[in-house]
């Protein structure tokens, strides 16, 4: 039988948006922001490897920072292989609500497409919001992609408001504790692996995920919760 050329339109891998949302308020100044910069920097080679090993997902990464106001560090999503971390500095207040507003604007369709993989949002914060974040969070969580996003928070130090972070993630399990530099590195590394888990092409019954959308629900089954580093295992004399 003759060999014919494959018919069909343009093929494409599925986009997977991974967004670091970083608290750059004054309380993060010093060792906290330094450790955060170092930790995220150190995840880049592994994330790039994971992206190369799965050519069927296009890992797009970007950073959103917030302090007095909020802004995108990279104006548009960057392919993982082209991503470089620009060290962040810290000053100002904690306008988390402004960050949620910017995030919501990017999670609407368009610019998102309906064939994307669930976005991964990783929020890192050490304090309490200084603006009214609830309205913008509510708007974010009512967007189709806001609901479906894998939302992880890293609570930095003992002054972080875990209830706020829980409101963001939808469950306590995904509020990871990082009370010292080593724990922060471990938690950031664990969060960065979410990208490769989300990109595996397996489907699941629809209402399983819905259970994780309600506050206090279980974590998305897409994540491997058994591998979350245990903060109490970390021996580090420097406690934030």
């Amino acid at each position, binding site marked *: *039988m*003759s*060999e*014919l050329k*494959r*018919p*069909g*339109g*343009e*093929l*494409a*891998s*599925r986009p997977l948006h991974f967004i670091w949302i970083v608290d750059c308020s004054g309380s993060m100044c010093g060792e906290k922001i330094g450790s955060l910069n170092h930790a995220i920097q150190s995840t880049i080679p592994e994330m790039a490897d994971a992206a190369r*090993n*799965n*050519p*069927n*997902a296009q890992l797009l990464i970007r950073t959103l920072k917030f302090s007095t106001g909020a802004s995108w560090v990279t104006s548009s999503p960057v392919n993982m292989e082209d991503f470089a971390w620009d060290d962040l500095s810290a000053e100002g207040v904690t306008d988390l609500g402004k960050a949620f507003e910017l995030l919501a604007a990017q999670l609407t369709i368009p610019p998102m*497409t*309906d*064939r*994307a*993989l*669930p976005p991964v949002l990783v929020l890192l914060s050490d304090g309490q919001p200084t603006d009214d974040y609830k309205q913008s969070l509510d708007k974010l969580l009512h967007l*189709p*992609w806001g609901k*479906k996003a894998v939302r992880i928070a890293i609570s930095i130090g003992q002054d972080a408001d875990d209830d706020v972070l829980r409101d963001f993630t939808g469950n306590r399990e995904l509020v990871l504790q990082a009370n010292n530099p080593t724990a922060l590195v471990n938690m950031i590394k664990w969060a960065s692996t979410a990208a490769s888990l*989300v990109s*595996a*092409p*397996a*489907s*699941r*019954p*629809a*209402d*399983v*995920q819905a259970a994780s959308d309600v506050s206090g629900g279980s974590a998305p*089954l*897409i994540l491997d919760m058994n591998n979350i580093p245990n903060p109490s295992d970390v021996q580090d004399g420097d406690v934030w």
Partner: protein
Amino acid sequence: MSSAQIFGESVQGASHKRSGKECQDSNRGFSLGQASILSVADGHGSNSCPYSKTGSVIAVSAFCKIMRDYCKHYANDMETLLTFLNREGDTKVAQEIDQEWKRRVRKVHKDNKREQYVNDKGEKDYAAIYALYGSTLLGLLIAPSFLFAFQLGDGDMACISDAGAEPIIVTEKILGTETHSLSKLDAWKKAITRTKRTVSDTPEPPHAFMLTTDGFANSYASQEEYTKSAGEYFALIQKHGAEAVSSNLRQWLSETSEMGCGDDITALIAYFDGKEQPE
């Protein structure tokens, strides 16, 4: 009614090749007298559904069995079958398909002596068993005078002609990696069905019906590219014949997965050339 040429393939996705997972999709299609029955299913493939390949095999088998039974029962009165499917498609018929899938899953599970689950009340936890076999299901009965389409979960069914590809059922799009599933209790409530009269609601032959699992459409850059592709498959069948397309289909679908979303892909096609069947 012209004769149908039915062919299809289910291929292991590129990501599943890398991870050593078997293809979780299944398909079945055949002619029964003047009718044709097509079905595809997509086993979920996630770690929580280790037997979803079995689930998809059972799904296509259950749909075909029930449609075959209906065709035989109403062989001399297909208009009554149309009326019945139109009225009861998304209730009684959907329940029957759902129940048949669950009955077979319970049997396979028991026959293989797999773990039985018990709920808090000490009763058998069938929901936990069904979850291990999770699958979608798309099915199409093509009778001489009408179509009956059934869809539970994601995937696409299109009628393709020179005028282009038209969806037979338009379903709600669930974002991400979730789908409606036969594994849920009362899964039938999420089923969507359509009946269409062949003469008034579908283009004249030559035309084709194409059922695909979601790995196919998800591999294209957009819905428009998927629609364009369906049209090109049809054009190739017309130009080179169904046999030529059939013999290349496995390779094409593998390439589609490799260059697209990496998921398993199934495409099942029934082509009607418009030539009258000899009596």
